[in-house]
């Protein structure tokens, strides 16, 4: 069973679509998605590896495998065109695999593999913003070995090391044409980076728990990407023949989260999370080429994102011993300032509503299912400070997901 699901995951596109603030994809656990993606102030089981390594010391030994399907839709209308076009985004499949094992009663080791950042957006080669972007695919898979220690009965701490790998593929049209059509550029490269995830978990009473976690910034670096240019023969001399190499760096921002969990009854769990996301690290998108491209060895566009907050609430109600129902909501502020909107991440303040259910088949095996609806505010922007595309964007996403938990 496990190997089959792993094989299935391996065969899908390991990407998210731009559905949270910026290019963050907050889909780390099916149970927690159902609860508005709260969880820093809870013992979330194996997914504490992500939400709060400090709580992992309390988690049962076990393995969780889950995945979501992101169906995202982005509408765009050019200024005064009175005509809407849609991005044709492929379905993204972010996933999560967590395993926790107790070395001693107080010390636990865990390994998480998950996809907290990504974006896949496809505008095609005909829309009016094609000189900014045809298609972007950004993938980042985090591998996080983690240790967690129960200092006292009420206090746990944990820390994980993050190795991130993935890649970027960006395609855009170039405003130069011959009789065959427009010129184009494709940038493709593997990227990797390092970071950490630390947390502290404190449960003073049975009814109340607190958590604080910090997931560090990870700078994804493309060391040796490939940039290729398809241009008219008469201007080929201005572009590197056969392409060139490029370097780029994309910061995956830090996230500091304070969470509170509250159990008013045995059957009900309530949770609140507030996160501060360090988006201000994303100041520019710069590509440095190995050779001159149309007279310059780099391109750079300002991004100047701002730090932003996410506010989450969630609830879980155990209807029976084996069935739990969940619901949640969140507000995710956009990090993108006015004038900086781009078709890569046509971002706006977004509202998320989620439902979920958990079902325990037996003592060891349980299943989670979730459904998240994301609605971003309609946003009109000139995009004039970021080399973007002027117009109005509106995005929604529908995200069903399932997970299997095996505890031992």
């Amino acid at each position, binding site marked *: 069973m496990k190997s089959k699901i792993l094989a299935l995951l391996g065969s899908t596109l390991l990407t998210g679509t731009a559905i949270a603030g910026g290019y963050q994809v907050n889909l780390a656990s099916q149970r927690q998605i159902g609860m508005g993606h709260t969880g820093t102030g809870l013992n979330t089981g194996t997914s504490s590896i992500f939400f709060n390594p400090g709580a992992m010391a309390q988690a049962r030994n076990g393995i969780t495998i889950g995945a979501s399907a992101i*169906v995202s839709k982005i*509408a765009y209308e050019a200024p*005064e065109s009175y005509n809407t076009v849609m991005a044709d985004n492929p379905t993204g499949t972010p996933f999560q695999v967590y395993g926790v094992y107790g070395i001693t009663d107080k010390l636990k080791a865990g390994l998480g593999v998950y996809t907290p950042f990504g974006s896949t957006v496809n505008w095609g080669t005909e829309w009016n913003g094609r*000189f900014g972007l045809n298609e972007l695919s950004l993938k980042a898979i985090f591998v996080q070995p983690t240790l967690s220690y129960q200092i006292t009965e009420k206090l746990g701490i944990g820390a994980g090391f993050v190795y991130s790998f993935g890649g970027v593929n960006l395609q855009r049209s170039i405003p130069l044409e011959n009789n065959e059509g427009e010129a184009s550029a494709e940038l493709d490269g593997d990227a990797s980076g390092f970071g950490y995830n630390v947390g502290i978990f404190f449960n003073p009473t049975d009814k109340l728990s607190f958590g604080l976690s910090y997931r560090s910034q990870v700078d994804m670096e493309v060391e040796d990407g490939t940039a290729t240019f398809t241009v008219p023969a008469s*201007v080929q001399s201005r572009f590197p023949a056969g392409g060139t190499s490029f370097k780029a760096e994309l910061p995956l921002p830090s996230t500091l989260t304070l969470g509170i969990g509250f159990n008013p009854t045995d059957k009900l769990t309530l949770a609140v999370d507030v996160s501060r996301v360090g988006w201000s690290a994303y100041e520019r998108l710069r590509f440095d080429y190995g050779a001159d491209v149309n007279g310059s060895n780099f391109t750079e566009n300002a991004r100047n994102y701002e730090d932003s907050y996410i506010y989450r609430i969630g609830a879980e109600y155990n209807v029976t011993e084996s069935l739990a129902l969940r619901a949640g909501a969140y507000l995710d502020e956009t990090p993108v300032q006015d004038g900086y909107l781009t078709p890569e991440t046509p971002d706006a303040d977004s509202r998320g509503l989620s439902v979920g259910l958990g079902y325990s088949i037996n003592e060891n095996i349980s299943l989670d299912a979730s459904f998240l609806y994301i609605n971003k505010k309609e946003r009109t922007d000139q995009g*004039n400070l970021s080399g973007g595309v002027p117009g109005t964007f509106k995005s929604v996403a*529908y995200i069903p997901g399932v997970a299997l938990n095996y505890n031992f």
Partner: protein
Amino acid sequence: MKNFIYKSGMLALFAGTLVSCDPEIDSPNPTSGQANFETYVALGNSLTAGFADGALYLEGQQNSYPALLAQQFAKVGGDDNFMQPLMPAGVSLGSPIITATGAVVPQKRVLKIQADCAGTVGLSPVEAGERAPYPNAFLGAAPTQQGPYNNMGVPGAKSFHLLAPGYGSPAGLANGTANPFFVRFASSPATSVIADAVAQNPTFFTLWIGNNDVLGYALAGGNAEAPTAENPSPNYPTNPTAFGQYIGALVQQLTANGAKGALGNIPDVSKIPYFTTVPYNALVLTSEEAAGLTAAYAAQGLTHITFTEGANGFVVLEDGVPRKLVAGELVLLTASDLVKCEGKGSMAPLGDEYVLSAAELAIIKEHTDAYNAAIKQIADGNGLAHADFNAYLNRVSSGFMLNGVGYNSSFVTGNIFSLDGIHFTQRGAAMAANEFINVINAKYNARVPKVDETQYSTVVFP
């Protein structure tokens, strides 16, 4: 387990029904507002006709700004059958060049890689084929669409030409009272442009005329005296008072049945690439060359003409007296081979017809300003929209970005001007259409959708 599979199946089904729920952008519907676009007629000159790359040809016509306006008007009640005197495919007609030895018709220009006069291989605009004999080329290029024509743009027309009976008469070609481009599609030899336009009973019109009233003077390097009783001096800019009367008469006829419309004003022609591509001081010398030239002029007693190392103003022969050009003065595009390969402007002075002096530019500005004051006054007085192309070209001249593309008034690479340095690319025509749409929407509370300019070609590279 079965229970769960059933439930997750229902969830997937639920998701499936939601998938069809596309996001919607809250924008109003297009509307014609207080305008009626049912029958749209465009009057003007070569810009209106869709002339580009030095010639009238099919693709330029199909993407002329009036054709693009009509396409947008059709979304708010306009007729989608906009008729133009289209050229046969693959045929092009430039403005005839008539000399003592004969008359020929230039062909449209394309970019080619070839050696220039100095032997340097590079991209340059060249005529795509052999020049054709005049007037036979025109006779062989009858319109492929039937009239009446919504696009009444006539290349070369000045303001008063639109009022002139017989402007389309074959018999008037020899003495210059007729225009071969109008002869192609005039409804009769005796008619005028305005008569053919009004006969269509337009509900909406655009009138953008007057560029040639001053451009003719500029293209002649300002080589025209103010007209007198003895010398009609046709290249001198049209008298501004008369210009206002011509525009007034045209508008009076066009609005007689209550039609609404838009007037375009006249850009500063000195900002188009034809006049800005060759800098006045493109004569770059070493100190030895400078000393040699200074000595050569001194030997002829012209000690006021000296040269220095670096950039120098070209030497021009003005009213028989050589002098150096100063900052602000302009050299015509046609001088580029002369200064590059024939030593003109340095070893020997450039002819006055290749240069716009400060005094000539002042005459151009004075007339353009006066024309534009008249156009604005007539537009306001008749409740018509007013497209300020003068301000628009100033914006182009400073350069701007739109949808990730840079636009400016550079030759070949500026994306607005075609390979003749005067007329629009198809992209430039789309931008002009949007300038009209902006003011039409504002004036008539309309919401005519803007053209997606990126769908139209700029200069095509080999």
